[in-house]
């Protein structure tokens, strides 16, 4: 009895008689019901509107943030850009004391180290991805993918630490002498000069390790997205397994893989900590990979807190702005290429 009474009390509480616009059987429409009706309609619609505007506002934070970053960094770098003009990008004199700033070494260093990274990482990443997608035994696939992806989870500073204490000595004592003497590459300008360790080569090597998982992941996705029919058709025509890859799979996946490579490039361009720890941090335009150098990111990291004058700071900001422009364009191209082959975003 008690339960039933409680239940019906709740039931009447749940029957929104007066507070809605819907009329109960037998209820007369009067001024009170009209007022109650209006309140609840407005209440619901208001909450819905608040929700819609709130999520829109949050979503618009993203374009807003990008815009603000662009504007602020550009504004801060503008004095230096205006003062030095286009020469900022081409001169190699960086003298805070004299107030002369040319970012060419940093820009060239960025491009060089990233290219080295890609040259080393791409065959390894692509080879590994091909192995994973087509030739690896199924029990190996997951663990191997996991390990390669794990490379991407290692923080940059840890790479740098390892680079300083493991890679640099290795380079100085083993690899560089090997390249210079055993392979006689020391005769070329690219491997000449003193080899103390910190160098463009070291930065390129570290970057290649950091970039590898990204190229591998995108390549893997894109290769897996190639329909089985392509592979089967090639095999049916008498191709060997390798010829299936080169003839049927790779051409299909080509733009996606290139997209992945360019994505890796984008990452390499912006890498800071590991690079600044192994590159030597010297404003020097040298043809030799054994020489220390700079990248835009490591330049900023190294000098920002010590910036002596306003123009010095502005020059660093300008370098940041140039880096921003370059990485945005590169990433944009990469995403477009990956999207074109239908590979999922990495």
């Amino acid at each position: 009895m008690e339960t039933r009474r409680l239940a019906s009390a709740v039931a009447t509480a749940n029957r929104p008689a007066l507070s809605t616009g819907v009329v109960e059987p037998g209820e007369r429409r009067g001024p009170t019901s009209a007022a109650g009706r209006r309140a609840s309609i407005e209440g619901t619609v208001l909450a819905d509107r608040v929700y819609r505007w709130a999520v829109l506002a949050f979503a618009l934070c993203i374009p807003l943030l990008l815009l603000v970053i662009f504007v602020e960094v550009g504004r801060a770098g503008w004095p230096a850009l205006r003062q030095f003009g286009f020469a900022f990008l081409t001169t190699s004199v960086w003298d805070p004391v004299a107030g002369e700033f040319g970012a060419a070494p940093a820009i060239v260093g960025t491009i060089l180290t990233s290219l080295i990274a890609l040259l080393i990482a791409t065959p390894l990443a692509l080879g590994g991805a091909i192995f994973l997608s087509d030739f690896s035994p199924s029990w190996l696939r997951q663990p191997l993918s996991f390990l390669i992806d794990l490379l991407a989870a290692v923080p940059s500073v840890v790479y740098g630490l390892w680079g300083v204490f493991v890679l640099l000595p290795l380079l100085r004592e083993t690899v560089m002498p090997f390249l210079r003497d055993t392979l006689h590459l020391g005769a070329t300008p690219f491997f000449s000069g003193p080899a103390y360790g910190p160098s463009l080569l070291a930065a390129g090597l570290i970057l290649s390790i950091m970039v590898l998982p990204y190229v591998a992941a995108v390549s893997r996705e894109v290769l897996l997205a190639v329909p089985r029919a392509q592979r089967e058709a090639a095999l049916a025509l008498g191709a060997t397994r390798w010829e299936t890859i080169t003839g049927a799979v790779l051409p299909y996946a080509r733009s996606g893989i290139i997209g992945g490579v360019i994505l890796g490039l984008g990452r390499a361009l912006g890498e800071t900590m590991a690079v600044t720890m192994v590159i030597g941090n010297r404003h020097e335009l040298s043809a030799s990979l054994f020489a220390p150098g700079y990248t835009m990111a490591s330049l900023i990291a190294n000098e920002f807190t010590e910036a002596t004058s306003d123009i010095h700071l502005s020059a660093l900001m300008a370098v940041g702005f140039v880096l921003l422009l370059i990485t945005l364009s590169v990433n944009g191209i990469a995403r477009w290429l990956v999207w074109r082959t239908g590979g999922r975003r990495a």
Partner: protein
Amino acid sequence: MTDSATIDSTPRPSAARDAPTALETRRLHAWFGATAAVRDVTLGFPTQEVTAIIGPSGCGKSTLLRCLNRMHETVPLARVAGEVLFFGRDVYGPGVDPIALRRQVGMVFQRPTPFPTMSIRDNVAAGLRARPGERLGRREVDAVVERALRHAALWDEVKDRLGGSATGISGGQQQRLCIARALASEPQVLLLDEPTASLDPLSTQKVEELVYELRQSMTVVIVTHNMQQAARVSDRTVFMLAGEMIETADTGTMFTAPSDSRTEAYITGRFG
């Protein structure tokens, strides 16, 4: 003319001659973009009776049902014209809150949709709303949950696991849970869109018995593609074809002596 009250053993409040029917459509049209799904349907659903809507796939019966509780408009590019009267009041008229309407007109869908992150108890209570200014105490909610589960013939099966996940019970039980959830707020009308289409025969039977019982407390409209089901549970039947209402009659007459030839063709299985 014998009074229906003396023939029927279940007591039914006799409908006053002038009281408005629970649901009624007047010249109802419904579109998805440019496609007309419901064309000019004028139809009454008698209070505290079960009305079945039958017809071949694509005839618009589900769309018609969804117009009754203003669910049709939740789909993009959906349009409605005409009137739907809920106890005499046009639900598409100015000042009517669709949300309040949906609390008075409950709906159960073809596939069971328990909320996966809620327990059985919380699922049933999901539709309960306190009056503004009041709070629902736990005991009151528990009482409502029990009542609704009993009403849906599910109480005995789940009473020891009310706190368990709602997805851990069988499909038939989940559908009855959804019915209990719709019943918890004691709607005046219950709309069922092919509720047993994805259930096994035993669960189907339980749901049909339930639907037959529900007429004592509410008006029921059930869309079904199963004519035998319509014959078993409904008092009146409506036949629809290509968006139009072809015929409506009490169930017995509809299945024994339909007046339209198209109805007869459908019922005898010549198409559909």
